[in-house]
């Protein structure tokens, strides 16, 4: 029973996290600079200075730990570099256990819309499974796919595509207060 209650609390927390709208472009605040790796997460910040120099901050996670991994064309396999980033993410998430994460899967524009949604789901799940295998509780992780709907680079060549084929770990505090 206790386990169940705890799980429900985590679920509640997750749904609260969902209310922060992982859709960072379509939300009421419009586009923000998070995709460039610098913007704070607004009112979901924990106590503390929250700046990039604070190792417990979301900004630190984004900039120093690295919030994203990249994929090759039409693949959801983690690269060695991606695994190294996720090792650091797993460490950080275990240290900062009050954070929850929504893992966003993205695709480049070479592909049809719905296939890319499914491909993004694969990529997000690959990250979730890896983080879970490194000890991050699966209940703290949730996935979403944006397919090709949210490119961060706009050119139509491999230089941009490579950056758009990504999974981004977006963290927020799961506190209900």
């Amino acid at each position, binding site marked *: 029973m206790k386990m169940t209650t705890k799980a429900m609390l985590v679920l509640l927390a997750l749904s609260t996290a*969902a*209310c922060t*709208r*992982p*859709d960072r*472009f*379509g*939300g*009421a605040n*419009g*586009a923000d600079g998070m*995709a460039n790796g610098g913007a704070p997460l607004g009112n979901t910040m924990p106590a503390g200075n929250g700046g990039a120099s604070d190792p417990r901050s979301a900004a630190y996670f984004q900039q120093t730990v690295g919030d994203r991994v990249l994929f090759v064309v*039409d693949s*959801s396999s983690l690269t060695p570099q991606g695994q190294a980033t996720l090792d650091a993410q797993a460490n950080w998430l275990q240290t900062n256990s009050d954070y929850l994460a929504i893992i966003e899967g993205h695709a480049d*524009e*070479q*592909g*049809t*819309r*719905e*296939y890319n*949604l*499914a*491909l993004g*789901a*694969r*990529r*997000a*799940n*690959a990250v*979730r*499974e890896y983080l879970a295998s490194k000890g991050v509780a699966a209940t703290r992780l*949730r*996935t*979403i*796919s*944006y*397919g090709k*709907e*949210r*490119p*961060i*680079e*706009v*050119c*139509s060549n491999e230089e941009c595509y490579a950056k758009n084929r990504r999974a981004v770990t977006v963290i927020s505090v799961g506190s209900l207060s």
Partner: protein
Amino acid sequence: MKNRFMIAALAAVLALGTSAPVLAQGSPLRLTITDGVIEPLPFAVPTFTAETAGAEQLASDISRLVAQDLSGTGLFREIPSSAYISQMGAFGSPVAYPDWRAINAQALIGGAVAVNGDQLTVKFRLYDVFTGAELGEGLQFAGTTGGWRRMAHKVADAAYSRITGEGGYFDSRVVYVAEQGPKDNRQKRLAIMDFDGANTQFLTDSSAIVLAPRFSPSGDRVLYTSYESGFPRINLLDVGSVTKRQVATAEGEMAFSPRFSKDGSRVVYSIANGGNTDLYMSDLNSGASTRLTNAPSIETAPSFSPDGSQIVFESDRSGGSQIYIMSAGGGEPRRVSFGEGRYGTPVWSPRGDLIAFTNQNGGQFHIGVMRTDGSEERLLTTSFLDEGPTWSPNGRVLMFTRETQGAGGTSALYSVDISGRNLKEIPVQGGASDPSWGPLQP
């Protein structure tokens, strides 16, 4: 059938030179549409008669729109009024056929418009110039002046249908995604328009991503993927009242790619769970759901056969994405696409004979059609990014999304005849994607 058209076409060509009326005698006004139609059938639409004071503008607008609809198919060519030798008399009065033969009009459309308050009446007659007889009975449509475009489309549908022997598609609507803003901050909302881009109405705001809407078979509702809840879910929107609700689906992290069953009571769609995407079916009223596929690969973009017995979909179970067909209840699918590259977004033709699809090959995208056994594949378009075909109600035309490349890339709606001819952009204000072509309106 083909010969019949060729005679007509031959007559049309020869008529430009000598004794056309003699050659043309006994060649009924009938255009059999085949892949070989390259000579559009010449027709004339003299400005409809205004039967009431003040109806002149609408009479002119309606006759222009009828002509535009027919010319827009690429199957007909309008003879300009400057070439007319005589004018039409009062509606229903005898037609001076020799004068129309002399300018090589094969079809002649006469009409009359009456306005009383906001009530609009449109009458029309279609004449087969070379046989010197009316083709079909005169027809009359009544409505309001605000609906004048629909009445013009109905006249054009009737003319198209009588001449080709096939259903028309002008009095129909398209639901699509209206787009605004740069690629890295694109705002999307659902919109509905007439097939020709007129009468746009927005159905949602752009506060959440909306994707890939689909019209119900009767055109009264729309299914689409929405991020309104923060995560991809399926919404059902009532077009008349513009009210929407989230559809109950099987459990899953993401629900997307919804399509109506043929009777409009069920939805087939994709669920992604643990990174794996499969197809499910749910009853729109009870929410009861069935799993249709169970494979570690991606199964998405389903489309019912017109009789509702089969579902065509895309799957990457063999590596790259390909097109498969299975029973509507699920079960082992058979692969139907075997050409070069990757295949996706299969859509079953309303006539049942063809499957339209997106093909990605050699760095380009194509819209294509194939028979339901995968044979006779033809790629109709080529561009940087073409995707997501939708069928006209008569199965003759495909509309799809074309995106241009680069930082300034935008989306637009295009249509192409299934022969590969008559490729054109639909005039839509702003960016547009993911069209779904609804049925002919009642």
